């Protein structure tokens, strides 16, 4: 996959999320990457600093949590259940839906924010527009 363009998109989304808080420093970005998303975590880790250079995300650590594949089978009804491919591990049917394992998602960001900004902003309640 094209991990550099994924990394660039992550940096853009995070930058937009903290645009209202210029005093905030992004310390870490946490991603959920499904094992069947097509994204290679090592390649993403390599590209992330390149994409973040010169942006408010520069210097932030990248944390990747891999999400395993779970399917629900519409043939035998089993699931959600762990699977190694898009096929029911019980009955072998391909008539399944993917519950988890395809995510390319930003879950959280860690920010250093001056105390007065936290008190006044939405950040304190754990939300940010993105």
């Amino acid at each position, binding site marked *: 996959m094209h991990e550099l363009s994924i990394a660039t998109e992550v940096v853009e989304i995070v930058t937009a999320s903290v645009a209202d808080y210029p005093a905030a420093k992004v310390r870490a970005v946490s991603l959920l990457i499904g094992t069947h998303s*097509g994204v290679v975590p090592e390649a993403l880790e390599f590209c992330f600093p390149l994409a973040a250079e010169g942006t408010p995300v520069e210097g932030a650590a990248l944390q990747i949590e891999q999400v395993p594949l779970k399917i629900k089978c519409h043939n035998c009804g089993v699931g959600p259940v762990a699977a190694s491919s898009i096929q029911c591990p019980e009955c072998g049917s391909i008539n399944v839906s993917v519950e988890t394992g395809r995510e390319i998602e930003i879950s959280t960001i860690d920010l250093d924010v001056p105390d007065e900004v936290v008190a006044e902003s939405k950040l304190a309640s754990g939300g*940010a527009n993105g």
Partner: protein
Amino acid sequence: MVKVSLEKRVLSKNDRIAQKIRSQLHMKGVGCINLIGSPGSGKTALLEASLPRMSDGLRCAVIEGDVKTDRDMQRIAAVGVDAVQIETGGGCHLDAELVTKGLAKLPLGKLDLLIIENVGNLICPVAYDLGEDYRLIVVSVAEGEDKPLKYPSAFVSASGIVVTKTDLSSYVDVEASQVAANALSLNPKLKVFTTSTKTGEGIEEFADFLVSVGKSARSMRK
């Protein structure tokens, strides 16, 4: 330190733009097909052969996606069909934002069918919704019968498969039926087309399919 929850899908921007494209095309009664296939699978040749065979006065245009050159746009224009070229300059897939730029150059109000020929690649284009009604994977017999099994995401995400270059079957020892069988084992709902631009096999059927997509869209025009 403050931990802020974003819970944001990275590709949500593309999906939003793709949905806008989809709504716009449906309102104007334009059907849309996204053609995905490896470099050299025969996507452009398939269009060169089938577009002139479209009947019933269907008006069609093509958005061509390539890393470099407008050679494919020239080939489509040479058979009398409007085409615009998007050069990604290095990007390995078209995305909805690029397609929006291509759409701006086309007279959508005067079209029944839009075909998007994606950048040659069986991996990256799969993740990017372009607002299409149909996604077709183009794969030639020369690529081997196992390609659906080796690139399952492409075939699972598609509505149809076009197996091309059947005239080469005896030289590469691969039958179109083998390619199709492997694709259907992953996605039994795939529409299957088998073609050769050399012998003409399947071109009429494919052209008829293009006409049906255009007619169906036209009938839904608001």
